[in-house]
């Protein structure tokens, strides 16, 4: 591998493209594709970025950070690197800056922005590294990087994120536009009804904006019913349009973030639907998942195959110019009610979020975090739509008739969690020609059978 050594001072002078502007332009007609990708070996990380850039799709790059860096256990990173144990991501805080600069050299540029993805409620050291490296795109949020990611108190996470976002926003004074994506559209990956995902995504975007970031994206993770997802993404777009005081925002759709199918055909089918979801709603970016999702960290090749497949599927899934449906959908009404109830609590969005969880105005089903009330619950109906079983104190009584709390067994929980896996593994097993073929041909068979 040849490494281009950046000269001293070159980093400080490096002016990266605005991730948000780039995606809005490239993704105006078909969504930009992005992998989840992070390796602890710098050469492998560089090769992964290079392959993403080369892929036959419109792409942006990703550096996903490892779990030790996320929880701030840098000693464990050192220990793993010393013993040659591969991590589940790239330890950006532990490597010297120069090392990461070499990973990026010649790859990131005006045609290929790179985003860092982590999952830390204590992100100060990570943000400091990003600022030094002029890595001006990342994701997260005070709620979405806290409740699903450990035991840091929510109020601490809010403070940590305020501090970090303000520092990140200060990059603007140096002519660098920092971009932040909300992770709120994913809460725990599964079993959270879409209206609450939409609400938290919007609230986190407002939080970022409040603290000075002007280039934003809002996430929504594909759930268990395609039509419900379409409604949710439109609700997200509508609310964002109404509430965000900037034009520079876009929507990113994540391929399913819960228990993934185990057959290659099933995996591609879910991915194809995620791409179609983006295409149908005019969403500008998609984060893909691979055939390895249910068992291990994917290889670079698996990731490239997923990027290319999803680009193809988005193309096929687009039927004319996406138009926001008229009328206020149920998901929109619920999401708006949640957002309004939270914003009424305090003019400061961080304080409002802390209050909201304390009072149960936001409440994530199945979330073990001590700052989550844990009284709201959810279930899947026969069509696979995510519904409220119990509202707890969620301010939705005027809009929803909850089905009533139910006793969940271990096998019942597993059945709900495995709904998508089951459905798509079974569906693809009956697809003509879709089984037992090598991935490349299988992809073709699946695309052409739609």
């Amino acid at each position: 591998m040849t490494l281009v050594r950046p000269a001293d001072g070159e980093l400080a002078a490096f002016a990266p493209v605005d991730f948000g502007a780039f995606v809005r332009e490239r993704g105006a007609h078909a969504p930009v594709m992005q992998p989840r990708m992070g390796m602890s070996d710098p050469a492998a990380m560089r090769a992964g970025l290079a392959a993403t850039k080369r892929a036959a799709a419109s792409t942006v790059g990703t550096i996903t950070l490892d779990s030790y860096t996320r929880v701030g256990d840098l000693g464990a990173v050192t220990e793993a690197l010393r013993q040659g144990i591969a991590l589940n991501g790239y330890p950006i805080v532990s490597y010297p800056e120069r090392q990461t600069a070499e990973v990026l050299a010649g790859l990131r540029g005006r045609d290929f922005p790179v985003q860092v993805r982590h999952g830390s409620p204590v992100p100060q050291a990570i943000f400091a590294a990003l600022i030094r490296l002029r890595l001006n795109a990342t994701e997260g949020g005070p709620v979405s990087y806290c409740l699903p990611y450990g035991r840091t108190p929510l109020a601490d996470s809010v403070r940590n994120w305020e501090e970090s976002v303000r520092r990140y926003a200060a990059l603007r004074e140096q002519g660098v536009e920092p971009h932040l994506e909300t992770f709120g559209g994913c809460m725990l990956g599964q079993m959270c009804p879409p209206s609450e995902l939409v609400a938290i995504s919007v609230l986190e975007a407002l939080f970022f904006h409040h603290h000075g970031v002007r280039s934003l994206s809002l996430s929504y993770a594909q759930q268990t019913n395609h039509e419900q997802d379409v409604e949710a993404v439109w609700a997200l777009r509508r609310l964002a349009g109404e509430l965000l005081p900037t034009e520079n925002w876009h929507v990113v759709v994540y391929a399913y973030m819960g228990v993934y199918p185990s057959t290659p055909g099933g995996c591609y089918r879910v991915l194809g639907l995620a791409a179609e979801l983006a295409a149908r709603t005019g969403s500008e970016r998609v984060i893909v998942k691979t055939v390895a999702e249910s068992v291990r960290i994917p290889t670079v090749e698996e990731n490239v195959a997923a990027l290319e497949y999803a680009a193809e599927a988005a193309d096929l899934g687009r039927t004319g110019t996406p138009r926001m449906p008229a009328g206020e959908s149920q998901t929109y009404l619920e999401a708006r009610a949640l957002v309004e109830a939270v914003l009424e609590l305090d003019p400061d969005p961080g304080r409002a979020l802390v209050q909201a969880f304390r009072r149960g105005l936001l409440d994530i089903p199945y979330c073990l975090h001590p700052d989550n009330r844990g009284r709201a619950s959810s279930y899947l109906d026969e069509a696979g739509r995510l519904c409220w079983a119990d509202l707890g104190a969620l301010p939705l009584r005027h809009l929803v008739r909850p089905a009533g709390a139910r006793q969940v067994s271990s096998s019942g929980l597993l059945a709900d969690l495995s709904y998508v896996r089951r459905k798509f593994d079974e569906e693809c097993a009956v697809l003509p020609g879709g089984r037992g073929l090598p991935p490349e041909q299988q992809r073709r068979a699946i695309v052409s059978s739609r």
Partner: protein
Amino acid sequence: MHGGAALVADRRPTVVVSGVASDSHTWNLVFLQLLIEELGYQVVNLGPTVPDELLVEECQELAPALIVLSSVNGHGFQDGLRVAGKLRDCQELAATPLVIGGKLGIGGEQNERQIGELLAAGFDAVFQDGATGLADFQRFINTAAGANRLAGSPGVPA
């Protein structure tokens, strides 16, 4: 996530379910809690990203019949190896049945050498995805912790 204080009245033996230090996944923990409760135990679920010291403290206080660690983020091998030593170093936990399971490395397949190291570090059983199933775990519970349960003396080795 709750501590062990308020469990006095319950006569069922206690099982501790816990994530390891770097792992934030919780669906595995919620699932294991339900499964083990259905087998007739009371479960104290310590939640995700449990620092080694907290796990040791809670186990010392609870004197459980069984400690079940779960990890799926790919760091389970390293985290498990480290904390097993710390648990086994406590006299009162030196013989408590201790298991770990999930997706322990990032490669997806079982690694005999790593499983051997985990067993050597103090685990009584390793339930690596793909290699062993939930049935094996249920069998283990019915023997290892079950022996204590019949003896009515949680914490005593099986």
